[in-house]
C-alpha cells in the first residue's frame, strides 16, 4: 500500500489560529496532531497533539508537574479560558517542540517508509507531498496502523505454514 492510497484530507491551521480553535479542529476531526500551514496553505510543520497541550499547561507547571495538583476546578477552567488569548504561533516559541522539519513522504512511498518517518520525527501525522512540494493530504497514525494491521492479516496464512517470509512481513 502506498502513501497516496492512505492520504486523507486533514484540515490545517495557521500560526494565527487561536489555541481554542486549534483545540476544536483536533477534537472535531479526532486528530492526533496539528498540521500548521502558511498563508498559501502549504504545510510548514506538524505538531503532535500532546505538544499542543503545552498551550494549555503553563510553562512553570511543565517544569514542576506537582503544581498541577494545586489547581481547583475553577482554576483549571480559567486556564482553559485563556486558550482564547493564545495562538498556534506560541507553539513555535516553545523551544522543546521540534517544529522545524516537516515530516513528509512521497505519494509512492511504502508503509515502511511512512512508519520510519513517524518514528524518526516522533510525529503521529505525516504529510504527503509530490516531488514539486504540492500538498496532497496527510496520513494519520491510526490510518497507518490500520494499514499495517490489514497488511499483516493478508500475510497471515503464510505465517501459519511457517514460511520465513512471515516474520519479515510482521517486522515491516
Amino acid at each position, binding site marked *: 500500500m502506498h502513501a497516496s492510497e492512505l492520504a486523507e484530507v486533514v484540515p490545517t491551521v495557521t500560526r494565527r489560529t487561536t489555541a481554542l480553535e486549534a483545540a476544536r479542529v483536533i477534537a472535531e476531526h479526532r486528530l492526533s496532531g496539528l498540521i500548521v500551514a502558511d498563508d498559501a496553505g502549504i504545510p510548514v510543520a506538524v505538531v503532535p497533539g500532546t505538544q499542543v497541550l503545552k498551550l494549555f499547561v503553563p510553562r*512553570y507547571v511543565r*517544569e514542576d508537574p*506537582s*503544581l498541577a495538583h*494545586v489547581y*481547583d476546578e475553577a*482554576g483549571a477552567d480559567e486556564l482553559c479560558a485563556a486558550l482564547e488569548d493564545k495562538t498556534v504561533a506560541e507553539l513555535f516559541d516553545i*523551544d522543546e517542540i521540534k517544529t522545524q522539519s516537516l515530516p513528509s513522504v512521497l505519494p509512492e512511498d511504502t508503509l515502511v517508509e511512512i512508519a520510519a518517518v513517524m518514528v524518526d520525527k516522533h510525529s503521529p501525522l505525516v504529510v504527503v507531498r509530490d516531488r514539486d512540494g504540492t500538498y496532497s493530504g496527510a496520513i494519520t497514525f491510526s490510518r497507518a496502523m490500520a494499514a499495517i494491521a490489514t497488511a499483516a492479516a493478508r500475510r497471515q496464512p503464510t505465517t501459519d505454514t511457517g514460511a520465513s517470509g512471515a516474520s519479515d512481513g510482521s517486522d515491516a
Partner: protein
Amino acid sequence: MTVQAILAITVFVIAYVFIATEKIPRVAAALGGAALMLVIGATGADEAFFAEETGIDWNVIFLLLGMMIIIGVLRQTGVFEFLAIWAAKRARAKPYRVMVMLVLITAVASAALDNVTTVLLVAPVTLLICERLGTNPVPYLLAEVMASNIGGAATLIGDPPNIIIASRADLSFNDFLVNMAPIVVLLLAVYVVMCRFLFRKSFVYHADRAERVMALQEREAITDPVLLWRSLGVLVLVLAGFVAHSALHVEPSIVAMLGAGLLVAVSGLTSGKYLGDVEWETLVFFAGLFIMVGSLVNVGVIGQLGEVATEAVGDNYFAAATGLLFGSAVLSGIVDNIPYVATMAPLVAGLVASSGGSAQGGALWWALALGADLGGNATAVGASANVVVTGIAARNGHPISFWTFTKYGIVVTVVTVLLSWPYLWLRYYL
C-alpha cells in the same frame, strides 16, 4: 618570572575572560583552560588529581554532588510547593506579606540546602502564585534570588563560594554559623524592609485575585507523604551531621554523601529520578577551575602574589579585610563569584598564614565570604542563582534584563555590604 608562569597566566586570563563574558559555555572555557595548563606543563596528573593544594578539591565536588542528590529526592515530594503556597495563604494573599514569606522561605532554605537549588524550586511556584494574584512576577523573583544570596551566606553549604572557602580554610559548619549567621540575620531583616520600598509598585491588593490564591490546594502538592517524611528525616540527620562534623572528625563532603546514599536507599527512587537534578556541568566546571587555579599555585604565581599582598598588608588586617570585603563585592558583581573565590582562596590563605593564625587574620575569610556572597547580588551574572532565576523568568515570558536586575541588585549590594563592614570591625578588629 619563568616563561611557564607567563604562559600559565596567559591561559588563565584568556579562560577567565571567556568565563566572564560567556562567549563560550563556561564549562568549555574551564576545561579548555585546564587542558592547556596540562599541555604547557603548568600542572601534571599528580598535581591536578591527587594534590590537596594544587588539584581538584574533591571535598567541594562531593559535597555539592551529595547535596544535589539529597535535593533531587526532596523535590520529588512537593514540599517546597506546599510551603510556598501555604505561606502565601497564611499571608492572606496580600502582596507584600506574600513577598516577605517567600523571601524568608527562600533565605532559610538557601542556608539549609543551597541557594542555587532553592531558587530552582521556589521560582515555579512563585510564578503560579503571581499568576493567581494577577501581578508581575519579576519583583517577586528578584526579591527571592537576592534573599537566597543573603540567606545562603549564613552557612557552609548555603552558597558555593562558602563551600570553597570552608574547604580551603579548613573551616567547619559551626564556624560559618557562629561568624556568618548573626550578620546574615540582621541583613535579612533590613532586606525585608527594603523590599517594601524597592518593589512598592507591585503591592496592589485585589480581593478577588486574593481569593484565587486562597483557592489553591497546597496539600495536593505533596505527592508522596511517605517519601516526604523519610526525606525530612534524612535531611535532619545530615544537618546534625554538619553541625557535629568537626567533633566527629568527618568532612562535610562525607556527611553529604552518606546522607545522599541513605536517602537513595530509603527513597526507592530510580537513578533517573535522584540523579536527574545533579548539575554535572557545574561539577565539571568546578573541576576545571580547580586545575586552572592549582596550576597558578604550582608555577608559583599565587605564591608571589601572596608575598606582594602580605607585604602590602603588613599587620593592618582591618585594612585588608576592608579591601577584601569591598573588592570582592565589586568583582563578584562583574564575574561569577565561584571562579572569583576559587582564585582568591589561595591568596587569602597566604595572608591568613602570615598572620600566624591570629583571629584578625582569620577574619579575612569572613570578609571574603561576605564580599563574594553579597556582591553576587549586584548583577544578573554575579551568582549562579541569578543566572538560574533570570533563565526561568525568560522561559516563562517574563524576561529580566541585565539592567533591571542591576538597578535593584546594586542597591541591595551596597546596603548589605556597607552593613557588613561595621560588623567585621566591631567583631574582629575593635
